[in-house]
């Protein structure tokens, strides 16, 4: 990789780090809004690292596909776990409420 490309990637990463810290201290987008902003910036940083430092843009497509498959695996893993949690959480809440009521009596 050429020196300007290396330094440009690095400067981009530093800029995005400063941006995410700045947003954290300076901008209130609500709890969810700030989380989404932080994750969008982190994903931009991750893409810079993957594309240039890890040469995925110049590389064989196959290596990218391996990594993309892994990312998909993690996304599926977390979303399926979340479906499970959201399915059972109301039952847990109900049970806790019942127990609290029983304790009062």
């Amino acid at each position, binding site marked *: *990789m050429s020196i300007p490309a290396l330094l440009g990637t690095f400067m981009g990463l530093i800029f995005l780090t400063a941006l995410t810290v700045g947003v954290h201290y300076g901008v209130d987008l609500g709890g969810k809004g700030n989380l989404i902003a932080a994750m969008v910036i982190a994903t931009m940083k991750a893409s810079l690292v993957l594309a240039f430092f890890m040469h995925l843009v110049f590389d064989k497509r196959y290596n990218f596909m391996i*990594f993309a498959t892994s990312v998909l695996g993690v996304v599926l893993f977390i979303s399926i776990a979340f479906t499970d949690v959201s399915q059972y959480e109301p039952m847990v809440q109900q049970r806790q409420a019942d127990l609290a009521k029983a304790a009062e009596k």
Partner: protein
Amino acid sequence: MDAAAHESHDAHGHDHHHDPRLAHHFEDHQHQFDTGKLGIWLFLGQELLFFGGLFCAYSIYRGLHPEVFEEGAKFLNTNLGAVNTVVLLFSSLTAAWSVRAAQLNNKKGLILAIVLTIGCAFGFLGIKYVEYSHKLHEGVFWGQSFHPTREILEEAHVTPGVVPMPAEDGSVDPKAEKIAMLKPNLHTFFSIYFMMTGLHGIHVIAGILVYLWILRRAIRGDFNSEYYGPVDFTALYWHLVDLVWIYLFPLLYLIH
């Protein structure tokens, strides 16, 4: 090479005019390099799934109890986290630079880039040590061992409230001054924090060990523009460690 090279093997399967760095089962350096690269990408994919388990635990706990994470993050030093992010990003730059130097047959540049990468890795661990030792010294442990001291509660500015503060000697008098209320299960945040940053730290240590080996080989003059796979693959691993930290930093330190 190819067919001609194969025919020149003797009865023992050895080719005496053969580059010793090219394993016999590869046709040429490009073949060897591509195979190694496929291997390291498979390993990195596996690493991602491996960390994915922890990210899953994090997401579920945070989804159910966001208040625990908001309060827990107050105990972390955002400045140290940000400095460590920059240190790790710089080490990724030098790691990428080491690959460039190897490709250009620049032995001095290669050695310098590797030494800088190792230096940054030690810097990262040093800052992490400062953070860890401060927390452990102030009773901020994981799980049931979580007994934060008065100093760190004041330092973290946790919500003023209802629960009596522990005295200097750690004992709790119910009539004591009530200045801090800790969220129930706050220790869960620190279980997750120590587990995730600890596992990441172990990866940094592993990276240092591999880079020391690469440094030894670089000084010996093993690498050139034709053979630099190990430099490239180690850098790829190092970038993945950086990648994990890119997500850990906002998820742990930058909670609103």
